[in-house]
Every structure is written in C-alpha cells, then in structure tokens.
C-alpha cells in the first residue's frame, strides 16, 4: 500500500487559494504532483455534482480550498462550499465510502506554506484510506 499514489482533485478559489499557490511557488514550495488543481472564481460556485464527478471518474480524494469565513470576496462563497462538502460527506457515507475522502480548507492569499501543507495533509489522509477503487 506504501507505493499507492492517490489521485486528488482540489477546487481552489482564485482569490485566495490560488494566490497562496503563487506565494508557495515563490517560496520554492512544490505541490505534490498527484494533486490536480481546478481554479474557480469562488468556491461558492462549486456544486454538489462538481464534488461527486471526480469520484465517478476514479479520483481517490477531493478537497476545496477557499477563503477564511470572514474574508470571502463574495461574502458567503466558502460558507456555501463548506455546507456542500458536508452534504457530499453524507452522500459518500450512504454509498459506504469514507467521508474523509473529501474536505474543505480555509486559506488566505499570503498562506503559501499552508497551501502546500494542506495538499500534503490531504494526500497523506487519503493514502491511509487506500485507493477509492479496489484493484
């Protein structure tokens, strides 16, 4: 199981998380290459279906990286995304799939280090869970 390299899809807010990614790049902090970033204008645009589709396509984990609750440019984007992630966790549970395969993180534009840490945290957590689809 140690050589298992989970495929992770990350929905990242272009206002904070993506800026954090740029900061991380400037700090020469590299993201794991098995995390696929999807940049979105606001995490409030991420629908339940968007969060389910990666699993349908075989991803092992999904996360949303957005703003702090009190600093969303569109006021409530990350709050909406958080509720949707919670809902998808319930769906996964009903499907007998570990709800920890999906998560949401609050970042801010300057937190380059944290952006990379979150990616590794998710990779390690999903690695523990094992592949979503058993070979």
């Amino acid at each position, binding site marked *: 199981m140690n050589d298992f390299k989970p495929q992770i899809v990350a929905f990242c807010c272009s206002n904070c998380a993506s800026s954090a990614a740029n900061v991380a790049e400037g700090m020469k902090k590299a993201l794991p290459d098995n995390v696929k970033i999807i940049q979105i204008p606001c995490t409030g645009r991420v629908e339940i279906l968007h969060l389910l589709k990666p699993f349908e396509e075989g991803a092992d984990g999904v996360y949303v990286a957005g703003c702090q609750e009190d600093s969303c440019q569109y006021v409530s984007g990350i709050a909406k995304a958080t509720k949707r992630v919670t809902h998808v966790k319930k769906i996964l549970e009903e499907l007998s799939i570990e709800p920890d395969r999906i998560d949401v993180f609050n970042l801010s534009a300057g937190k380059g280090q944290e952006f990379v840490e979150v990616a590794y945290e998710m990779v390690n957590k999903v690695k523990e869970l094992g592949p*979503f689809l058993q070979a």
Partner: protein
Amino acid sequence: MIVAEPKPIKELLEMVKDFNRILVVGCKGCVTVCNVGGAKEVAILASSIRISRKKMAQEIEVEEHTLERQCDPEYVDELKDMIGDYDAVISIACGVGPQFLSERYPSSRIFPGVNTQFMGGAEEHGIWSERCAGCGTCVVHYFGGLCPIARCSKSLLNGPCGGSANGKCEISKDVECIWDLIVRKMMEQDRLDELIEFKPPKSWITARDGGPRRMIREELVK
C-alpha cells in the same frame, strides 16, 4: 408547490440493486423549484449510483432525462422511444410522476426516488412549510387569510385550543400556533368579532375522505 424530499440513497440503491440499465427521470415542475427532482438532482443521483456501482466493481449504465412535467401525458410520451432500453426507471417527481409513468409504460419497472411531503411554499431558500391540505373547500378568508385546516395540528375551525402557549403549538416549540396568528391578524384588521361567530363542523366530502378525487371541466375537454 408540491414539496418533496429525496429518499435515502441507500434505500434507492437497494431498490435497483438487481438492475444494470437505469434511467433517472426528473421533472421541471414543483420538484425542480424545491430542489429535489430537477435536472441538477437527476445528475447528482445518477452520479451517486455510478459511484456506488463503480466502488463495487459492477457494470452499470445510468441515463439522465428531465421532463417538462411528469403529470401531463404529452410530456410523459417523450420517453416512449427510450424507456424500453432500461430495466429500471427511477422517477424523482412527486408521487404523481411514477404513477403516470407506470400507467403510460405498463411493462417498465418504475421506482419512486423522492418522498412527497406536502403542498407549501418556501419561507426562504432551503426552508419550506405546509400551507394547503387540499381539502377542496377553501375557507381562508374567514381566518385572516390563514388556513387552520392545514396549519392547526387539530385543524380546528374554532380555536385556539388550550395547547396554545406563547404563540407555539403544544406539539412542538418549533410549530407556531396558527390560531395565535389568526387572532392577531384579525385584531390588526379590527375584525376580531368575526371569530366569535361559530363555525359549524366542516364537511370533508370534498376532501380525500370522499375517496380519490377527479375533476372534469367540460369547457376544456376535447
């Protein structure tokens, strides 16, 4: 609108566990408005079924389709060229939908994907509450425009009862006493004296108690 809630996915998966070609059918009417049975929810349910089967390494084909309405034969007809390709159909319309599909396509296996709850409206996005019991004889004008049939736990026509306290019904602190609201509204309109007039017991002949209902309007029948 008719308000419904999704059936637990686990229950739906159990219903269709023996089928490998599934059609999920939504409705663009009430269930789209209450976010339970429109095209978006069809896609979510279809995706959930695919994920579940993929997890179990089982073959599955799930097709998605949303009709204008499932309670009108002209729209139900739209499925005639495709429904035969599927061995199970999940309708996520209100309880009318799966029945209209079953009647129009008698050889198909039709499953209900939602639990129909009540006729009501949206208090705000994501919160709905009951407003009409479909009793067949509307009397809201006697009660300040509020319906004691649908909204009083006892459907009292001469209220409130002794279970009303601080504007709440005795059955739950989350249920408002409609009679409290009726009295306040009638006071505001200076019509409180109208409530003193005794309302005789309601005839339920026009309601569901008279058996299944049917309505014919000759001016519309071809």
